[in-house]
């Protein structure tokens, strides 16, 4: 009994010492981490801006654009006749489009049109399963959309290296540079025609990057898209799905099987749902080299042209 009590006393003494040591050592680190996380989260960015816009204005929006960079940079709501907002983000996949839509579903009282790009790769990827998975934290931190159970996906600090994070803090707090890269209506501003990339060399590499060997997400993504259309149907909203224009160096290098699977699925979807309309603009001859920023994105000139066309199409179908 005495020995047992002695052991317990020694344990308590050593453990207390250990805990004090750890707390003293880790305390400053934890405080620094929390401080940095606070600073990083307070840097305004596209995600916080769009979440703020949607929270305030979703009851006014008539046309909502969702999707990846192919909508973010290709559609400028400024040229729409209806009150429109571009809620697309780089690498945003269909599952996240659905989540955004669900988040504000109660507020979309005037919504008439949802526009979603279904690009060559859209039916075969989900952000959490791509190399761009680190962007998931933007949805959990700024949109409060939880699609992941990884702790790192809930933190700004843990999603990038400290090297990058320190330069972000320096850039915003000390240099005064903003991280917001979209217009007031959510259109991506970085793809300026003055900085067009080489359309010839970027095409094959991008096409290769967008080609998937594993097509297992196809059915799941198709189901998500159908759910979006079904959600819209119940609210008398029309869904416009489009495959965005791309330069011929990209189009020529696409895998026929993957492309055909997408095109046939979209045609089927259009047949199945009377509130869904599909436009394949992949090889649309209206868009020439000067409209492209790179082989699969338009610049602001192309975006203007494309948005005006989209606006007309929507109006025609509405009539």
């Amino acid at each position, binding site marked *: 009994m005495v020995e047992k009590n002695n*052991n317990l006393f*020694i*344990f308590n003494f*050593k*453990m207390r*010492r*250990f805990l004090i*040591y*750890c707390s003293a*050592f880790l305390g*400053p*680190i934890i405080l620094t981490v929390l401080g940095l996380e606070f600073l990083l989260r307070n840097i305004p960015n596209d995600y916080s801006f769009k979440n703020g816009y949607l929270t305030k204005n979703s009851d006014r929006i008539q046309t909502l654009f969702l999707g990846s960079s192919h909508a973010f940079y290709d559609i400028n709501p400024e040229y729409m006749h209806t009150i429109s907002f571009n809620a697309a983000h780089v690498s945003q996949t269909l599952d996240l489009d659905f989540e955004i839509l669900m988040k504000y579903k109660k507020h979309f009282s005037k919504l008439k049109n949802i526009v979603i790009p279904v690009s060559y790769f859209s039916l075969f990827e989900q952000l959490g399963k791509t190399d761009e998975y*680190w962007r998931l934290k933007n949805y959990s931190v700024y949109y409060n959309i939880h699609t992941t159970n*990884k*702790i*790192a996906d809930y*933190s700004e*600090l*843990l*999603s*990038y*290296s*400290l*090297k*990058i994070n*320190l330069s972000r803090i320096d850039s915003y707090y000390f240099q005064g540079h903003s991280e917001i890269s979209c217009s007031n209506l959510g259109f991506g501003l970085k793809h300026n025609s003055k900085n067009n990339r080489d359309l010839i060399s970027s095409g094959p590499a991008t096409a290769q990057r967008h080609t998937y060997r594993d097509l297992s997400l196809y059915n799941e993504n198709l189901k998500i898209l159908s759910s979006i259309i079904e959600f819209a149907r119940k609210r008398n909203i029309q869904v416009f799905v489009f495959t965005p224009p791309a330069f011929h160096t990209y189009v020529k290098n696409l895998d026929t099987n993957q492309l055909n699977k997408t095109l046939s699925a979209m045609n089927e979807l259009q047949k199945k749902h009377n509130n869904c309309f599909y436009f394949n603009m992949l090889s649309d001859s209206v868009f020439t080299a000067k409209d492209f920023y790179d082989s699969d994105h338009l610049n602001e000139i192309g975006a203007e042209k494309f948005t005006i066309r989209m606006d007309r199409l929507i109006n025609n179908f509405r009539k």
Partner: protein
Amino acid sequence: MLFNSIDFAFFLPIVFILYWFVTYKNLRFQNVLLLVASYFFYACWDYRFLFLLVFSTFLDYLTGLKIHEAESRKKKLFWLWLSISVNLGFLGVFKYYNFFASSFANALIHIGLKANLGTINVILPVGISFYTFHGLSYILDIYKNKIKPVRDFIEYSVFVSFFPLLVAGPIERATHLLPQIQKKRYFDYSKAIDGLRQILWGLFKKIVIADNCAEYANQIFNHSSDYSGSTLVLGALFFTFQIYCDFSGYSDIALGTARIFGIELLRNFAFPYFSRDIAEFWRRWHISLSSWFRDYLYIPLGGSKGGAWFKVRNTLIIFVVSGFWHGANLTFIVWGLLNAIYFIPLLLLNKNRTNLGIIAQGKCLPNFKEFLQMSFTFGITVFAWIFFRANSLEQAVNYISGIFSKSTFSIPEFTGSENFLSLVFLIFLFLIIEWVGREQQYAIAKLGLNWYKPIRWAIYYSLIFAIFYYGGKEQQFIYFQF
């Protein structure tokens, strides 16, 4: 769950608190906790393969008892071979089936026949090579009457599945680990602090050195035909540091974690790049695997007892099997073969046990001879790693021909970039710390222990700063694929 993930940073303290505060008074509860935590740790990667781990554990537990209870040798052998064949059968199906099927089909094509054995599309269960070898060592030790089987299934399961060593070793021995699981463990302040220190050093090696080297090594190896000979040399060097810091970093974290729970694991690395010959290198690199092969393959084959041819044969077998253990690819076999070729002359000249001590022990620097020996051993190791890293033999051969070209004398690419220069500086700093700490269990085991506390803490904070500064994306450990 990865050791270098934030999830592990939450998992470890939770298990620690439950282990020392909730289950402290009862050994069995502590073991149950370790088992549950270990299965949770494994299930975070892929819960579907948990059944395989549990099945393998149960099989070895049962066959261990049966071998011990069997009265005749014949019966003992039956249970032994049952365990060996089922364990190696799983390993064969998951790890080697596709390799053998395609190699067999290719061989038939060469003699004018066609066969389609089909391939299976299955992911390799993480850690299968490690826990299979764990179980086998237990069974073989029972068969050889070195140990008695464990009656308590929980204790045996913890031996196989203890989370720090579950997915990438060290490959433990029942004689070493089981007694620690079976007896009461006491919290030891200095050991716990030492464990934390070793975890910190492991994380530094993995996140700061290995992951940064990986960026250059991957870029150069994946586009090797685009680079000059000098850049290819650089690529091989980066991979050399990547694989060492990746794997030994993992081992450091595993050993440190186990120490916090009052358990000592086998040392896996002992500064292998400071070896003076290849025999010494193999006594210092992945020690738990090398000694496993020595005890359960080399010695049963006859070891070094026979004539020259006998020794050569056994050495070749050991190295080729060791290469093949790493993966179903000819590149690993050639890597093993190459190491055998380096090793055999030392064995035949009876010089394979010349350098048993620590290089320049008690001195600041090695002498000229030691420096030359160390550089030569390092050089041939780098050369062998090219085969290990290459995707195919063809790529390895092309890579090496690229190195032996005129362009080797050109200025390598990347050398002007700030990232490259900072990485070279970090590797240099890392080598100095490793050299200074080469007489310890791990490089920073005694670093600054007698210094003023704020200075020592400043060193630890610098390491943590570097980990955060260079970290970001969680990169998988190389040895998870084996």
